């Protein structure tokens, strides 16, 4: 794999399921979704037992699914090696966000690497009408899928808390496929503000109900990762599934992303500051959470699929 800084693990080369990955010396977990959800679950906002306490923006992130990638035109597509993948599905509502999380703690402040094979789709319905005003299906050229422009974005985030009271931060990388007007953006982004928390909301540090972006204070708080434009393989029809390799290397010591790689594009992000929370957080020593998310910009369900996920460390 291009630009990979680590020697290949010989054991991984001997295992067909692992040989498509490039782990650091110790595999913390390997989640093959043919074997179940492996601890990936719905993220939910904080509460004390009363669901009405949950921030509206964090109340409906949807339960993850084990998907066979089954479509009305071809039936079951399947995953990279097997039948099932982890699927996140939004509601068919503009700006709706689905988020799945896996929760761990770290044993040392070293490197953590998340790898996965991912694909993304917008929902294609029989006799459906991609009815937004920017639809170009009337001049469909037989090549480019109109539904590609109905897919908004997917996001990878971690949640790190050092020691008893912090510092706390969220490293975040987002692939914006299209904007709400259906214009293809196809660019990797990073946030310039923190990912607002329930505590920030209750302290009045951020607006609550009207905030449209869970991962940043303002939807304007995103910048292009240098060299981050990368068209991905949506393919020509929404039921044709192509998987993409993703590798995210994060340093728990510097609290920076070192590299983010998708297929043959490897972005050096070590000079990009990760926004740090000013507040003190308790109850989260050595927090090491990872989450994946998908958001639709239009009234069409958007789906994110992970064939499998592997997290490895150098400690």
């Amino acid at each position, binding site marked *: 794999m291009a630009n990979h800084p680590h020697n290949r693990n010989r054991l991984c080369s001997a295992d067909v399921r692992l040989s498509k990955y490039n782990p650091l010396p110790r595999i913390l977990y390997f989640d093959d979704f043919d074997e*179940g*959800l492996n601890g990936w679950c*719905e993220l*939910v906002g904080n509460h004390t037992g009363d*669901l*009405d306490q*949950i921030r509206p923006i964090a*109340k*409906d992130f*949807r*339960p993850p*699914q*084990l*998907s*066979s990638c*089954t*479509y*009305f035109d071809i039936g079951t597509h399947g995953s990279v090696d097997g*039948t*099932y993948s982890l*699927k996140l*599905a939004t*509601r068919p509502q503009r700006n709706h966000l689905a988020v799945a999380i896996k929760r761990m703690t770290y044993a040392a402040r070293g490197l953590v690497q998340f790898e996965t094979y991912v694909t993304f789709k917008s*929902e294609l*319905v*029989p006799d*459906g009408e991609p009815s937004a005003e920017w639809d170009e299906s009337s001049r469909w050229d037989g090549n480019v899928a109109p539904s590609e422009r109905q897919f908004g974005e997917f996001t990878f985030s971690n949640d790190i808390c050092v020691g008893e009271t912090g510092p706390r931060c969220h490293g975040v990388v987002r692939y914006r496929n299209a904007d709400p007007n259906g214009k293809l953006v196809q660019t990797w982004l990073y946030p310039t503000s923190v990912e607002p928390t329930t505590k920030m909301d209750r302290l009045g540090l951020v607006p609550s109900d009207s905030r449209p972006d869970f991962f940043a204070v303002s939807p304007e708080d995103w910048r292009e990762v240098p060299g981050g434009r990368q068209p991905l393989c949506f393919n020509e029809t929404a039921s044709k599934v192509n998987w993409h390799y993703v590798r995210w290397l994060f340093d728990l010591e510097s609290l920076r992303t070192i590299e983010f790689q998708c297929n043959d594009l490897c972005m050096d992000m070590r000079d990009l500051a990760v926004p740090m929370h000013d507040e003190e957080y308790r109850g989260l020593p050595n927090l090491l959470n990872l989450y994946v998310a998908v958001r639709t910009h239009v009234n069409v369900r958007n789906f994110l699929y992970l064939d499998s996920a592997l997290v490895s460390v150098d400690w």
Partner: protein
Amino acid sequence: MLRRSFTAVLEKGATFSGEFSTEPYEAGWAHEARWFVRVLRSDERVGLQMVPQISPDGTEWCDEGSGSIRLQGAGLASMPIVNFGSWLRLRGTTTGRTGSVTVLIYLALKE
């Protein structure tokens, strides 16, 4: 290996009035399923009826055909489903007087 199971919360304190349906949920890996519907609160004399639906593709739906779930006021009811293919959802409607119900809806799946 132990047989796998998974419980999905399809609605979490959502409020409905009139006709509605839950989001499609893929369950092709499961051998059996059971819906749990809990009404947290409802307007006076407003009931809830929910019918399981199945689909081959997650987009076109028909009633599963074995029955329905009915609730009047706060409470919990459930209904099993087998031989359902790959996709499940509930079609629901409020009954009785015009008003709303607030619900938790669970889908419990087992291999």
